[in-house]
């Protein structure tokens, strides 16, 4: 059951990795997120070097998102205009992220920055999502219909360069989508994630896109960003392991299909509540690692910083 990974230079249990891919793929299909924020820490936990984990998870995210996006595409639930505009910011963000990655690695603060970013992003977003979905569920129960799309979008309506996004039934400035794309692109390079857990809430709460197009559109954006980052990681850091990617992807695509079906049976609010809990659990785990006394206060990395 052991298989040698040529780039990670180690043997792994391939059945376990396929199972890991399937499990994370299931969640990604269900919630419309890539699952990188779960996969990267889990891979590191199985002793795979963190540089390889970060770079290779991206392929898993690409595949799971591809599988999920095609399912959404058949439902005509993708806003390609919005995805294209966000990708413009995404490419810039990726280049910035790769530059920042190299800088932080030289300083030896890579792990800290990654962990802090994870804790802050996941903690903040998880908390907001939890509060909103609990409020919505409570409103359902008491028979009051919560207003889903408030008319007043405040500062976003005031921005220039407005554009019509037919599929999303929106007429807003291109600046917020480009900005979100940029942030997600840079985080993708630093954290090895597709950024679904940021894009999905940002689309819902900042852009106020209808929930039915959010899933498909975010997946298209994630596919593009992770594909570009994979190529940048392969050419800059030689840290993509194609055998590992194959294992994760094989499990991931099956899991994603099952996840999409499971997700269709749940209501949007329930989905968001579950995703919020999952995000908060990961954030809490990473926070604990930051403050707990490490097993050995010394750590070693090969090569020169």
């Amino acid at each position, binding site marked *: 059951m052991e298989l040698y990974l040529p780039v990670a230079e180690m043997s792994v249990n391939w059945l376990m990795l396929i199972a890991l891919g399937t499990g994370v793929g299931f969640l990604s299909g269900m919630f419309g997120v890539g699952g990188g924020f779960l996969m990267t820490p889990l891979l590191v936990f199985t002793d795979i070097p963190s540089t390889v984990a970060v770079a290779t998870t991206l392929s898993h995210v690409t595949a799971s998102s591809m599988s999920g996006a095609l399912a959404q595409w058949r439902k005509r639930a993708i806003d390609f205009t919005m995805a294209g505009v966000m990708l413009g910011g995404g490419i810039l963000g990726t280049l910035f992220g790769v530059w920042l990655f190299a800088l932080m690695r030289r300083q030896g603060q890579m792990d*800290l920055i990654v962990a802090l970013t994870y804790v802050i992003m996941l903690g903040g977003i998880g908390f907001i999502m939890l509060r909103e979905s609990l409020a919505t569920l409570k409103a359902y129960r008491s028979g009051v219909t919560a207003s889903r799309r408030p008319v007043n979008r405040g500062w976003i309506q005031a921005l220039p360069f407005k554009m019509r996004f037919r599929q999303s039934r929106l007429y807003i400035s291109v600046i917020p989508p480009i900005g979100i794309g940029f942030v997600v692109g840079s985080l993708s390079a630093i954290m090895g994630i597709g950024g679904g857990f940021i894009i999905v809430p940002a689309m819902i709460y900042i852009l106020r896109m209808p929930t039915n197009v959010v899933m498909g559109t975010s997946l298209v954006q994630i596919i593009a960003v992770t594909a570009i980052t*994979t190529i940048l990681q392969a050419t800059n850091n030689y840290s993509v392991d194609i055998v590992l990617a194959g294992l994760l992807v094989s499990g991931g695509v099956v899991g994603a299909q099952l996840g999409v079906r499971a997700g269709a049976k749940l209501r949007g609010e329930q989905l968001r509540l579950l995703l919020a809990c999952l995000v908060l659990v990961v954030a809490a785990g990473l926070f604990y690692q930051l403050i707990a006394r490490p097993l050995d206060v010394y750590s070693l990395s090969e090569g020169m910083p």
Partner: protein
Amino acid sequence: MRRALIAALLLMAAPARAEELVSGISQDTIQITSNYTGTDIVVFGAIERALSPQGRSIVVVVRGPDEPMTVRRRDRVAGVWVNRDAARFEGLPAYYYLASTEPVARIAPREALQRYGIGLQALTPTAIGSHHDPEPFRQAAIRYHQRMGLYAENPGSIDFLSETLFRTRVPVPAGVTRGQYNVEVYLFRGGDVVSAQSTPLFVDATGLERRLFNLAHDSPLVYGLSCVFMAMLLGWISSVLFRRPA
């Protein structure tokens, strides 16, 4: 297998009389294949009939290629563990295994061990760019490799098959670095080396593993693109396979 080995040893024992020590290894290359999970090599040899009881101290050292490494120390800053000080080392091997007939401290004085690089404490890398005492950082690097099974000292692990024939097993774990390794066999007498022999051992990947590794380093763009292509293709295939008949 064992009988063949002993036969080979006996054949080699004849010329050994002249030079006191002759040694060999069971294989001179380790091929890393897709199901490689670590292996053992056998280091064997023969010594001239011992003249005195101290004449049988043998040390086997297997040393991997040197690898530059950086060791960082975390300190608590505002409740969070942050990397503060660092030391960079050159001249630490990626793999180090020592087998001996008895603890090395009893075989020879420190200076002699230091001179031949025998024992983990004799690994003295050059510290670069460190503004503080590099010693705890060096100890940490050794600890790290011991945890990974890449550094080990195993005194008393050399078996004597007869008065002159010896043999030991050297574990080569799955996490080893590719490159040229050296198998050194030392014969000590009275606290000093009287005879030594060094044999190279090559660790390399073969077949598909090697081709993938080479592709990743020689044409990373093609490699990266194939990764993305594979991911998208598998995503698409699964989507078609799982398509529910509408």
